[in-house]
């Protein structure tokens, strides 16, 4: 029985029928509580992630760690016996350079592909391209890392005549190829969300397809496209295995695309296995985790706000 039927307002005999709180009524109550718990579980988990990562890292972050050194020193020597230093500047430079190059590769191509798929392609062509893009997005990051090591690495060494092919260039291109399908899909959704009436109105005024796209659809989908780029940045920033395997994993502030670098995420993946729980090294890796969590949270939140802005206008 739907909750909004007012049993009291009905004539006596029917009201009695409705008032029987039989087994079905209790099952219904139990289920609504059960699915509610499922619903809020997402919130519980995201808070749980924050709490458990903080729990392992906060003691060190507040106690031993010199936050100024953490963000401004480029010396990452957590295993040094006499004088361990925990500066993540070089690691941030590594992450930033790889993510930056990846976005340089991925943003124009995925926006272009999204525009083509959403606005120009039709019928079978569109469906096949969408399926292909979706399949590309499914390739696991460890496979991308392996591709970086075994296919891109010799290719870069041959093409540019450099001694090492595991570099910003390698990791950036790999990451760009990884992030592009996801950005394409989100950007395409953003373009699809622009009401057809907008296009029809412009076409009725005599605009050609590309005029419709550039003057009407792109401005209308601007926020969604920005969110797609932001989520791509978040993806690149947080990617672990591919960057670990393709970047060369050398602590370095890069001056050219052929320099090896080390990313924040990769550092955790490479070093966590060798640390003892409770040690400073263990603590600093969890501190890095808190930092990564906060940054990606902010990126996702911003993307969400940017998209919601568009929702209000329409």
């Amino acid at each position, binding site marked *: 029985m739907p909750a909004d039927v007012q049993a009291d307002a009905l004539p006596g005999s029917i009201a009695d029928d409705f008032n029987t709180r039989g087994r079905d009524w209790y099952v219904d109550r139990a289920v609504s509580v059960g699915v*509610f718990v499922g619903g809020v579980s997402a919130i519980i988990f995201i808070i749980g992630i924050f709490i458990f990562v903080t729990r392992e890292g906060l003691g060190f972050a507040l106690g031993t760690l010199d936050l100024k050194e953490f963000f401004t020193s480029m010396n990452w020597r957590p295993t040094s016996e006499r004088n361990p230093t925990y500066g993540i500047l070089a690691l941030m430079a590594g992450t930033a350079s790889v993510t930056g190059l990846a976005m340089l590769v991925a943003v124009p191509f995925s926006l272009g592909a999204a525009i083509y798929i959403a606005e120009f392609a039709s019928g079978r062509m569109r469906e096949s391209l969408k399926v292909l893009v979706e399949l590309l997005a499914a390739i696991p990051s460890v496979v991308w890392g392996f591709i970086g090591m075994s296919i891109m690495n010799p290719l870069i060494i041959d093409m540019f005549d450099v001694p090492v092919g595991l570099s910003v260039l390698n990791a950036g291109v790999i990451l760009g*190829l990884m992030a592009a399908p996801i950005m394409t899909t989100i950007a395409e959704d953003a373009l699809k969300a622009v009401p057809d009436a907008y296009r029809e109105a412009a076409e009725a005024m005599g605009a*050609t397809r590309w005029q419709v796209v550039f003057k009407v659809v792109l401005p209308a989908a601007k926020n969604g496209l920005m969110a797609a780029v932001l989520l791509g940045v978040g993806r690149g920033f*947080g990617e672990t295995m591919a960057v670990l395997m393709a970047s060369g994993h050398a602590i370095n502030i890069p001056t050219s695309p052929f320099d090896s670098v080390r990313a924040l995420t990769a550092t955790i993946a490479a070093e966590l296995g060798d640390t003892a729980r409770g040690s400073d090294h263990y603590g600093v890796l969890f501190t890095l985790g808190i930092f*990564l969590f906060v940054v990606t949270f902010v990126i996702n939140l911003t993307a969400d706000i940017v998209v919601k802005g568009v929702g209000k206008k329409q």
Partner: protein
Amino acid sequence: MSMFARTTLDQQNRRVEWLVKTLFLMMTVLLIVPVVLIMGILIQRGAPVLSWGFLTEVPTNGMTAGGIFTALIGTVWIVTVALIASVPIGVAAAVYLSEYAPDNWLTRAINLAIINLAGVPSIVHALFGLGAFVVFFGFGRSILAASLTLAVMTLPIVIVATRESLQAVPHAFREACWNMGATRWQTIRKVVLPNSISGILTGVILEVSRTAGETAPIMFTGAAAFLPFLPQGVLDQTMAMSLHLYVVSTQVPDVPDALPFGVALVLISMVLVMNATSIAFRVYLRNKRKW
């Protein structure tokens, strides 16, 4: 000159139109072709290693020879336990969001949490799994800890896919059922879920594919670089395909060149076959749908 003849401006517009269209098509192609080429290389270099023995033998000689049997079975364990944990929670969450949730701050917060669960870096999920399941709940490094970590991480996939397929069921179906005097839950169980079960299944397949390919979250929570035997229960450690690829391509000296290609090929085939199945399923359903 008639009113409808093409003016110079028209012709110019047409040329620009063609140029723009071609440019975007080329961008799309440039996005896809490198990956197709890479897949070709993977197949070409990995295929010679593949054999029935490669799939059914354990790794030998310090992982420089033999097959991938223990890693394959380990991945099956991890994926199965992760599914058992996440599918019920994910479906419940989706049912809540689609059938019960009012439009309020809590629902907004849940949606934001889902986006963030999907957006948190996999290595942070690994730290969470280590801190929560391995240490705090005391599961140790085990299949259980690894699977629960992956379950939390892939929960958004199930929730989003299920919610979409629940919302695709027309509201009139529910109203018809309520008018017969059915409770909310009876309506969901007899009408909404049966009409969306296949959509839920496509989400589950996607989750399987994602779970099978993830590496970072299981590195420190339950997957081992090498074990000579199969796991006996959920509290054992296990090998896994994704970690095995990382290990044979970076950690082990003197691995024959072709071996990691073989591992990569098997892993990527598993993932792509599952994704293709999910997509085919979805297309089939869309064509079959009567409303």
